[in-house]
């Protein structure tokens, strides 16, 4: 297999594009896809302050790497979820990357903000751990961005993440979720920082290849709570479809963004206001994060048992 650009031996085949690239040309391809995402959705401009949510995984570190190389003012944000050794290791990866690149890294602990780490939240709420974790992450990303005067929050969501989320929303016809599925969510309230996903044009295999070829030391092990997650099942289904029909995931997501999403967007009429407790943007009187925090604190007061490891 030869590189489509230079004819050298290929390092990676991209079946959905019916092409292959050598290492050097693949890295160019990858960076150009990120630039195209930023340009197309006007995600941010030079001089704006970008808060990159980093987990220590391949996607977020690859994104941070590209943005730093392109000269953006990109600060990392690591949210310590308190998930045992996994969090210890992932935090160490982020710190090592930041040190090596001379980049600024902000660290916030979920336990400090919610009252307990993710394993306890899982135990108290008896909900899938990803729910409380995701809610806490979205809330804290926004709050830290506001506190540090950031213009935009960038996350490492890739094409597979977005396609799996869309698949889940469609499977349950969560029509209220569909308008919010976008590579760029504008700020619709003074307390809501805009959010962007510059990797949405790239598959997770491509981000893994980028991280490997750039010798980024990322955490390969998956989150222990991700096992059995619905999103993983959806990804597996989509990968089967991709194997049978290369480009299936791409067409599913991009077709939605171009043809279906505008219709759902027009139908959305949510009005945001400030949470009576914490002042962050919410559709209700008290935001979901404050309710979660109350639930955790009540349980802790009542002597919640230690979570299973």
């Amino acid at each position: 297999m030869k590189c489509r650009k230079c004819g050298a031996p290929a390092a990676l085949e991209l079946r959905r594009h019916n092409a292959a690239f050598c290492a050097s040309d693949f890295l160019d391809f990858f960076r150009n896809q990120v630039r195209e995402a930023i340009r197309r959705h006007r995600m941010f401009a030079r001089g704006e302050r970008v808060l990159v949510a980093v987990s220590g995984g391949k996607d977020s570190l690859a994104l941070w790497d590209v943005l730093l190389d392109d000269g953006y003012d990109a600060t990392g944000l690591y949210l310590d979820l308190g998930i045992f050794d996994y969090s210890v290791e992932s935090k160490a990866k982020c710190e090592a990357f930041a040190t090596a690149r001379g980049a600024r890294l902000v660290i916030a602990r979920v336990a400090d903000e919610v009252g307990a780490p993710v394993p306890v939240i899982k135990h108290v709420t008896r909900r899938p751990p990803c729910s409380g974790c995701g809610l806490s992450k979205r809330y804290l990303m926004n709050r830290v961005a506001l506190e540090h005067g950031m213009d935009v929050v960038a996350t490492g969501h890739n094409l597979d993440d977005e396609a799996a989320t869309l698949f889940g929303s469609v499977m349950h016809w969560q029509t209220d979720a569909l308008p919010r599925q976008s590579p760029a969510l504008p700020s619709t309230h003074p307390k809501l920082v805009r959010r962007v996903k510059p990797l949405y044009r790239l598959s997770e295999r491509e981000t893994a290849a980028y991280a490997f070829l750039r010798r980024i030391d990322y955490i390969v092990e998956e989150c222990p709570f991700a096992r059995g997650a619905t999103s993983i099942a959806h990804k597996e289904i989509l990968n089967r479809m991709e194997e049978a029909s290369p480009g299936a995931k791409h067409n599913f997501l991009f077709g939605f963004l171009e043809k279906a999403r505008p219709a759902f967007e027009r139908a959305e009429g949510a009005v945001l206001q400030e949470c009576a407790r914490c002042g962050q943007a919410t559709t209700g009187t008290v935001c979901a994060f404050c309710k979660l925090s109350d639930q955790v604190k009540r349980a802790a007061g009542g002597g919640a048992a230690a979570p299973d490891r």
Partner: protein
Amino acid sequence: MRVVLRNPRREVEVAGNRRVKDVLRDLDILPETVLVIRGDDLVTADQMLRDDDVIELRPVMSGGLGGRITAPLGDAVERSREPSEAVGDAVERSREPSEAVGDAVERSHEPSEAVGDAVERSREPSEAVDDAVERSHEPSEAVGDAVERSHGPSEAGHPRSKPVSRTPLQ
């Protein structure tokens, strides 16, 4: 040949002198879900693996997307404990033959119109790749735009010095 697998980390011995894609098929691993690594290099599916090779199959799937809570958490917790209203209906319906079955069986015997087109398209390289090849000889568009923006009014008012053929990635 030694194959290193992750999550959890383990090793298996498989016969060598075969192509990567054959090894993946034998291990029931979809190529889309792993990077195949030999030493410091990535290996493509068509490459031959020797008997004395050591390769790592590194999973690329990251999981747990943080869920998607569309209602306040309290409500969601409540709902999760209630039996679904639809259960009774579904049990009823499962005893009736579906009206759609006949139509579906009918349709399954007709060739899809889209198949011919899809086969044609599958042999052409993606438009995004052509763009990437084009762009490799030009400065990045994003940089150009940013420079333009930094010097003045909106880009809409600035005709480009050279027409750019930008095709969406699809």
